[in-house]
């Protein structure tokens, strides 16, 4: 593996401690941002989510590169495994955008359903057929 047993033993301890520290900080940050530690303090969701995602990615990097030894694999292997995951970046952006759009549409429908119309506009009557049609709908 190109590194001594003692060194890798020390590394394992070092990285598990870093991972544990990040996890503790994540939980602390989550509770801090929701007002559990300092009364009334609230961070905006976007800041919370951003910070959490960055910390999780650091943890993912440590697990893959240190624990799974990706660090010691040849570049070809690393690329074939890691590059495809970049597709997920777009998937996350696209689907969150889609989700927000669903919500907008739902809100629009609720809004329209709740609208009260003071003077309903009756389409101009052009013939008996149209009138009948409107009546049957209404």
């Amino acid at each position, binding site marked *: *593996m190109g590194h001594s*047993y003692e060194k*890798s*033993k020390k590394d*394992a*301890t070092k990285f*598990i401690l870093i*991972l*544990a520290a990040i*996890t*503790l900080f*994540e*939980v602390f940050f*989550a*509770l801090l941002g*929701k007002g*559990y530690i300092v009364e009334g303090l609230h961070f905006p*969701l976007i800041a*919370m*989510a951003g910070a*959490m*995602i960055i910390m*999780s990615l650091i*943890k*993912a990097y440590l*697990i*893959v590169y240190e*624990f*799974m030894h990706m660090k010691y*694999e*040849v570049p*070809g*292997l690393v690329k*074939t*495994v890691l590059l*495809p*995951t970049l597709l*997920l970046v777009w*998937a*996350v952006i696209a*689907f*969150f955008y*889609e*989700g*927000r*759009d*669903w*919500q907008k549409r*739902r*809100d629009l429908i609720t809004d329209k359903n709740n609208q009260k119309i003071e003077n309903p506009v009756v389409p101009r009557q052009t013939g008996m057929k149209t009138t009948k049609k409107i009546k049957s709908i209404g």
Partner: protein
Amino acid sequence: MAETLTHTAHEGEEKLWDGGKSPFKASYGKLMMWYFLLSDAFTFAGFLIAYGTLRSSMPTWPVPDFVFSIFPGGFHNTPLYFVTVMTFILLFSSFTMVRAVQEGHRENKNGVVFWMVLTILGGIAFLGSQAWEWTTLIKGEHVSVTTNPFSAHTESGVYLAGDGHDIKEGDTFEVGTPYLIHKHDGEWEFLKYKVTEGEDAGKIKQQSFGPKAFGALFFFITGFHGFHVLSGIIFLIIICVNVATGLYVKRKNGYEMVEKIGLYWHFVDLVWVFVFLVFYLI
């Protein structure tokens, strides 16, 4: 004929493509484990993205630090404490796995067995914790794949009745205040409240169930992860027994089988990092 042609045309590369070489310097088994994990990562990503999409499409969503706020021993108001313990259990079992692989590299049979047994115990402890968490949600709070009594208010108001638990008559709430609808004698008890602000101010309404998808997503995604942990434990036990009986000694490849199950085990931990992020932290 065609074969001879290609061979003469690429004489220099002949050796490279004749087999027997390992451009990735990894065995077939290890390489395939990496690709299996890559495909599995996409499966989990699909589920987690579905969760994110549905959550961002809903006007309200259960608040994680309210939903997961019970600790074994009857402790309430301990937001995320238990799941932090679960995360530490899994992290620790990842560490013991690293140690097992390291002992394997120096062909230390007893060392491998010792650290693998600790890893298996860690895995079992994690599954046990998950079983407790599920039991609390299903038996105690009556969450199911189709019913979700957890939600959060979308307007501010004041309760007109108490539920005999945390909510008392006259308690006020704001937009985003979480609530849990309790079941009394098999009947759901939807508390009535009066809206105090906004367009509907003065109206009397009652609590409604939270987004239906929450229960299904939670049980399915954490269940799928738990199933990975379970299969990991089974493979760890098989390989641990093989190590103990000395099967891998003859192979003289630094206990590569332990390395392969190690990759899988770390992956399970890796997935948990994101399950933890999506379900509990955000």
